[in-house]
């Protein structure tokens, strides 16, 4: 029931057949689904089909996304490990960390639909808290991650307090100010390195600092960032693709959607808070991880410019998609960290990319395909709509959706028939029927009656005898077994002929109005 079924009308359009990889099915093996451990989700969306050309059974991969993901992630981990230079490893390490933050931000902005700009503030709180505790009390790195998680959740709770009361935009601006607030707090606070412009170094590291000079240590450090990215992606999938994600999508776009969601009993506010808390917790832990990765933290984490750059990453990739967040990060971090000798121009380039994608794409790089397809279908539909008049017998809204030409031809015929019959309806015909509803009629009346007789059951009326020879009523047939006819009006008729004529008049009216 919940699986989407194939719509027969949209399948097999000439020239529009989606390319799907297919391979022969092994007849000796029954096709069974592999599932992700502990879930009901299948690993790959496979479906069986019969190929009419080769006359063989095939297994078709309907969703290619997992393959691209695997390939992309493999590249992300393979390139730096294979090249192995320090610059590459640290660049990709930063990409992985920023990408994880962006994925969580996407979860907050896309899935939860909260326009929160306090992402970096949460990361920074986790980072500073963990680094401070580690420096002061010598916390080992696993505990630092835990502290980050707790701080993140606490921060998420604090930020979520005004979310229920404030409108989207007010909330966005308030959270935008929060990073600035945190930055000020750090500069005022001596314990957090306020004297050294917020630099707080010397915390515990996952990969000990003496190992960081070797290639092995650098590779290890990069691999930890990659694992962190995997964790972030898993959290995203868990939240966005699961039940909570579905409930939130129901209430996503507008006030009307929210009204619908509450009408069917969805507690979308709670779902939103859950997603927000989870994402904040992960963000805090990410901050703590950042501290363990570079062995400390600095004020740069709260800067508005970094926030804007991260927004640019998300925008370039496409808001609301994990793949968009990752690819956008790769592009922007690639530009800003690799071409360092370009000076301010590289920021200009990143900003210009973000501007272009906002101006010309609907939803970043990953929205492009959809956008192109929409443009194409719109052009086709416009073209078709402007050329033909065949559809006039439908309500105009339906016409472009009908792909079966025989339906259109059938309805055209029906319409012409109705028009012809309508032309025959004259007072004389009605008078003739009134005089003798049954029996021999003139040619035109007989044809009209024949048209009425061959109509489908649900439109038909019948005569109901309340008291024989005294009172009759007109009823409408439901056309469904077990569903009784319903009385159409409160008129009663004294004779059967009168009732027959009343039925005839109703059908004539229906015909005229059609």
């Amino acid at each position, binding site marked *: *029931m*919940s*699986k*989407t*079924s*194939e*719509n*027969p*009308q949209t399948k097999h359009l000439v020239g529009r057949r989606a390319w799907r990889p297919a391979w022969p099915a092994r007849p000796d093996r029954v096709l069974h689904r592999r599932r992700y451990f502990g879930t009901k989700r299948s690993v790959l969306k496979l479906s069986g089909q019969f190929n009419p050309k080769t006359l063989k059974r095939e297994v078709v991969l309907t969703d290619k996304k997992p393959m691209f993901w695997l390939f992309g992630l493999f590249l992300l981990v393979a390139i730096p490990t294979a090249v192995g230079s320090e610059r590459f490893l640290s660049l990709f390490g930063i990409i992985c960390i920023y990408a994880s933050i962006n994925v969580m931000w996407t979860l907050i902005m896309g899935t939860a639909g909260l326009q929160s700009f306090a992402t970096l503030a949460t990361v920074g709180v986790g980072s500073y808290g963990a680094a401070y505790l580690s420096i002061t009390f010598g916390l080992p790195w696993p505990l630092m991650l835990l502290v980050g998680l707790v701080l993140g959740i606490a921060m998420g709770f604090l930020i979520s307090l005004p979310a229920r009361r404030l409108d989207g935009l007010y909330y966005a601006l308030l959270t935008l100010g929060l990073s600035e607030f945190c930055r000020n707090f750090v500069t005022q606070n001596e314990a957090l390195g306020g004297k050294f412009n917020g630099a707080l170094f010397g915390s515990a590291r996952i990969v000990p600092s003496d190992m960081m000079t070797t290639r092995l240590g650098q590779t290890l450090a990069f691999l930890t960032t990659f694992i962190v990215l995997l964790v972030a992606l898993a959290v995203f999938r868990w939240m966005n693709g699961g*039940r909570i994600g*579905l*409930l939130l*999508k*129901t*209430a*996503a*776009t*507008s006030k*009307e*959607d929210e*009204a*619908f*969601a*509450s*009408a*069917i*009993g*969805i*507690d979308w506010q709670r779902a939103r808070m859950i997603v927000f808390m989870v994402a904040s917790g992960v963000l805090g832990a990410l901050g703590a991880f950042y501290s363990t990765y570079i062995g400390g933290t600095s004020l740069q984490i709260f800067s508005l410019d970094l926030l804007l750059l991260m927004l640019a990453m998300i925008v370039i990739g496409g808001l609301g998609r994990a793949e968009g967040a990752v690819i956008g990060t790769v592009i922007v971090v690639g530009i800003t960290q690799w071409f360092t000798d370009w000076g301010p121009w590289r920021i200009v380039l990143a900003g210009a990319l973000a501007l272009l994608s906002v101006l010309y794409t609907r939803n970043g790089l990953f929205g492009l395909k959809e956008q192109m397809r929409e443009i194409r279908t719109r052009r086709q539909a416009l073209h078709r709509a402007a050329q033909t008049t065949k559809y006039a017998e439908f*309500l105009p*809204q*339906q016409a472009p*959706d009908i792909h079966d030409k025989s339906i259109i031809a059938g309805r055209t015929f029906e319409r012409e028939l109705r028009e012809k019959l309508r032309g025959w309806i004259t007072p004389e015909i009605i008078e003739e029927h009134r005089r003798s509803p049954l029996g021999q009629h003139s040619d035109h009346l007989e044809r009209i009656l024949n048209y009425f007789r061959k109509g489908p059951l*649900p*439109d038909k009326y019948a005569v109901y005898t309340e008291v024989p020879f005294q009172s009759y009523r007109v009823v*409408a047939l*439901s056309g469904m077994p077990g*569903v009784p006819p*319903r*009385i159409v*009006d*409160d008129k009663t008729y004294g004779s059967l002929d009168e009732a027959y004529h009343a039925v005839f008049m109703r059908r004539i009216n229906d015909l005229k*109005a059609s």
Partner: protein
Amino acid sequence: MTLLSCTDITLDLGGRRILEGVSLDVSKAEVVGLAGPNGAGKTSLFEVLSGRQLNHGGDVVLNGTSIRKLPMRKRVELGLVRSYQRPIVPAALTVGETLKAARKAYKPFPARLTVEWAAEFVRMRTPLDAPTASLETLERRKLMLACLLLRDPQIVLLDEPASGLTGSEIDEIDLVVRKLSQEYGVAVLLIEHRLELLAMVASKVLVLDVGHIIAEGPPETVFTSPEVRAAYFDVPINADLEGNLVIS
């Protein structure tokens, strides 16, 4: 026995009194009609009963317990559901996903078979992968109804279920209303402009005008009472725009 009752509901919005001293009772499996000119407060009464509007005076009682303070979704869990006048459906989902969301809205989840039953009950004829945004009014209303009914409600509040529909489409919705009360014992509170329909399905009709109940009782007596006729039909052309009675 009384299923849902409200007593002495008063509601002020933006400095205007929308409802004043409205009370009503709905018994099990009963169809109660709610009629009245536009701006009389019918929809506002629904907002109060369904829990979307909590700042009101008076009390709302379901099955003997007060639900005055409960938000909308809690009332849904207790079996009080409503539809809206506009045919709203989630914009970003497909039909199948909408039904799935309704099934998984809160625990315990009903069986998938229930969803199929509900979809069949309202006679939905849409492919499951059709995006809801492309649906027409009738299908939207049916989808909304199916989502509401799969939770087996005790009372359904329907806000002009036939608005924006034509001829045979209206009949389909009417059929659902009748089947609900007659075959499944679900109480229905129905806002409706077509008095002839109310006369046929409702056992009791209330007529609201400017926030007051001006008539209450069986349809035959209500529709023939002079106040109702004045509010609804026999009006001089230059009627008072507020909907106040101008009896000249």
